[in-house]
């Protein structure tokens, strides 16, 4: 069964050393973290690194393996519908590029399709495993300007509110025959624009109320900047190991 061992002992040594070292590090990580998840900031950086390395890949099979891996996890976690719905736009876009390339040249470059599929799958998995607010919070550690983080936090909080308000107003307009099927294009656009206009005005007015509420709670600009927790040792180790793995994957792809 292990006839490859005496034939080329180097293979055996390499696989044994890497396996047992990884085993010890993995157990150490689990012990140190107590089973807690990786810091959102580290996860975000690793995602960025992985997407960049996928973008730089020369062979189609590595991105396809990553996509297949994501697909298996999605089906296991029963989120296949969400996963496939978010893949629609990137896939259409890559087909558009493939179509242009095919029309103009005889060769078809499937690598673009594989890269887009893999990158989008990785992004979807970041979203599924990390709340957006946690990513924004952890970005202060990545030296992203505090103003951007504060505006993003506000936007994140109010996008859903205004989206619901817009839907309510549209439903109200529809109940008053505002979007009939036989209405002209200009009439529909006009009704939709009025809803948009009302939303902008209400955002302008509400911002004053929000500001007063924040001031009453002793808020001041860049207040969050002072409460930055340091990165834990286990997160640092996990980040270094995983990023080494990603870089290793890129190197293997280059030399194959």
């Amino acid at each position: 069964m292990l006839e490859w061992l005496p034939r080329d002992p180097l293979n055996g040594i390499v696989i044994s050393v890497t396996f047992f070292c990884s085993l010890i590090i993995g157990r150490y990580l689990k012990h140190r973290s107590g089973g807690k998840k990786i810091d959102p900031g580290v996860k975000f950086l690793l995602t960025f690194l992985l997407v960049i390395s996928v973008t730089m890949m020369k062979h189609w099979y590595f991105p396809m393996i990553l996509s297949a891996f994501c697909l298996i996890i999605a089906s296991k976690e029963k989120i296949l519908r969400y996963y496939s719905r978010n893949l629609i736009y990137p896939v259409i876009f890559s087909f558009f590029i493939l179509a242009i390339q095919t029309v103009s040249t005889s060769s078809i470059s499937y690598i673009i399709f594989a890269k887009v599929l893999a990158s989008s799958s990785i992004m979807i998995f970041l979203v599924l495993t990390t709340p957006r607010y946690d990513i924004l919070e952890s970005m202060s550690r990545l030296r992203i300007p505090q103003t951007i983080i504060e505006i993003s936090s506000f936007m994140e909080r109010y996008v859903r509110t205004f989206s619901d308000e817009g839907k309510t107003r549209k439903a109200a307009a529809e109940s008053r025959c505002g979007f009939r099927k036989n209405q002209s294009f200009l009439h529909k656009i006009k009704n939709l624009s009025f809803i948009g206009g009302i939303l902008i005005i209400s955002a302008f007015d509400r911002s004053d109320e929000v500001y007063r509420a924040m001031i009453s709670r002793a808020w001041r600009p860049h207040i969050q900047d002072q409460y930055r927790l340091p990165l834990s040792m286990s997160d640092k180790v996990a980040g270094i190991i995983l990023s080494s793995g990603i870089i290793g994957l890129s190197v293997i792809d280059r030399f194959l």
Partner: protein
Amino acid sequence: MHISDGILETQWILFWFLISAIFIAVGLRIINKRIRDETAYLPRISLIGAVVFVISVWHIPVPVTGSSSHPVGTPLAAIIIGPFPAVVISAISLFFQAFIGHGGLTTIGANTFSMGVMGAFTGYIVYRLLKNITPLWFCAGMAGFAGSIITYITTALQLALSLNSQNVIKYWELYSFGFIPTQMPLAFAEFAFTAYVVKYISNIRNEIIDAESMDRFTITALVLMVFIVSIIITGVYTGKGDLSGIDGTIEALASPGLNPDGIGVRLMARFGEPLGFAFVGIAGGLITGYYWTGFRRET
């Protein structure tokens, strides 16, 4: 039409990040200055940004095709909050949109440049130029139309530069033509949408529209930028096939003893010409801008 992850080459990802970062930095500087003067500006710009983000993902009916699509939204944002803050809002919106499968993390720079920078600035400049000579609804509508068209032309250029660097002009045309069936009707829809929204807001709360304005220096610089870029683009379109330019003639006349293996030539070859030219542009612009006031005083 946002570019997804995995499409652009790494050097172009970095290039568009670099260019967009400059505009975002200036936008942040303006926002921070406003926040220092008036703290209430932070929630205001954030909430208006949230609404513009919500509006930009609404499905609006598209004429001719009978389908529906999303407006660009950045020309409208530029009219309401100003072009530089609109770039910051656009970058944040693109970051959020990357999580729902529209665009990507690595392409935020490229998408911010096409939507945030080109879309917002073209829309704003068109709006400002037409404001005093045409009705408000028309200049706002034209801002929406021009912003939408320029966004897609820029996206097509970004794709051509990254994917087909050996024949950029041909592929730029191909990608642009590929976008026309969906994007041209959408641009007309954006014209009507932006025109009606701005008209409605100006009727109810006029101060929201006129809240922002740029100084004369910035407007002159931006108009000059658009003018020079338009001349270059027109030249590129009309002079198909022969894009050698006048570099050789200038080099021969200005510096006959030029060393072809100089540090500049080698650096350009190592990092790629666009990054090299971007660096020269940034350095030249920053130094000139920094010493501009003193230079004007002396002359």
